[in-house]
């Protein structure tokens, strides 16, 4: 790929790194990344991916910007309140880097659309807010072989890992089934420190870039836990489970499942 003079300048701090270089920057410009959610996690991840020159960024979100989002969802601005999040996100990302093609999907991910959308992308950054979507995305990504950079947060704590169905465990290897409706942990209205999704979403952006350029070791097979109150970061080992219901030896989940959204009862 031939860079324009402006691109050489824009990406100069990447290109001089031997781990990125012209080759890595070209990979970034050719990469297609799908963001699930333009919220707390998706905001910093998408901002950094756009700034890094990821060529195509798809964004799935059916929500509108609410003033209570602005405490942490830094893709959106005060004047965006009431707009579709995907429209606000597209404008912000294009404002940072005109090299980036932003593809908005103003819809909720469902069994009807997930396969078709996933097939257009090399990698997914999962910043969604509910377990039904996480299971749907997981199963679809196993079927399509698409890696997912997973992030989740609760109050002061976050989790990040990379589920790459071609080489490591998937979400169901970790948590085989969603909890029963009366026992959903951590989805009640509990608040979140605004900086936390900033950090976790940025780590997701980092993992996405490492995956694209092939630098270092990604979090495949490792779960990173971050506790902001104690500044405690640790990693646990994740195994691919031979008994996993979707990627194991005898899968029982062979088609997509739309789980009902349930929330409100405290674990």
């Amino acid at each position: 790929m031939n860079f324009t003079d402006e691109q050489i300048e824009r990406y100069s701090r990447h290109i001089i790194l031997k781990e990125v270089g012209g080759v890595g920057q070209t990979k970034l410009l050719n990469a297609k990344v799908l963001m699930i959610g333009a919220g707390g996690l998706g905001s910093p991840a998408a901002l950094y991916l756009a700034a890094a020159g990821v060529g195509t960024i798809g964004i799935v979100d059916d929500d509108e910007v609410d003033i209570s989002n602005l405490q942490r969802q830094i893709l959106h601005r005060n004047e965006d309140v009431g707009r579709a999040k995907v429209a606000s996100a597209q404008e912000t990302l294009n404002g940072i880097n005109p090299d980036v093609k932003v593809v908005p999907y103003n819809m909720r991910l469902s069994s009807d659309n997930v396969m078709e959308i996933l097939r257009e992308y090399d990698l997914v950054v999962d910043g969604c807010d509910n377990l039904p979507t996480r299971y749907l995305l997981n199963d679809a990504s196993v079927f399509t072989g698409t890696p997912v950079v997973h992030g989740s947060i609760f109050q002061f704590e976050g989790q990040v890992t990379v589920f790459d169905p071609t080489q490591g465990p998937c979400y169901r290897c970790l948590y085989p089934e969603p909890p029963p409706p009366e026992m959903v942990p951590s989805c009640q209205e509990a608040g979140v420190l605004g900086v936390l999704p900033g950090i976790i979403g940025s780590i997701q952006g980092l993992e996405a870039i490492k995956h694209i350029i092939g630098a270092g070791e990604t979090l495949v097979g490792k779960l990173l836990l971050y506790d902001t109150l104690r500044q405690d970061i640790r990693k646990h080992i994740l195994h691919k489970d031979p008994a996993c219901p979707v990627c194991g030896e005898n899968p029982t989940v062979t088609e997509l499942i739309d789980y009902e959204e349930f929330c409100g009862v405290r674990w």
Partner: protein
Amino acid sequence: MATVRIPTPLRRLTNGNAEVEADGGTIAELIDNLESNYEGLKKRICDENGTVRRFVNIYINDEDIRFLDNADTELEPDDVVSIIPAIAGGNETEAAR
């Protein structure tokens, strides 16, 4: 005594403590000991049959007990046990609706 790391959603049962100490030669014994000091913890971690719930994972140091001996996994006194539930959220406003 092993050190047990409590996830945020369950800290209301441990007086807000992120880490507590507990006794037990195995994970099952440790969970019973936790329950005796912090009532209500066990039913969050285990189902009616005493099996660890499928949306909760327990780690000894950095290893998942499902890939050791599950609740029969033996504990050393200086082990660190972590209880790690599935977390839904990424955008708490939507999660709450």
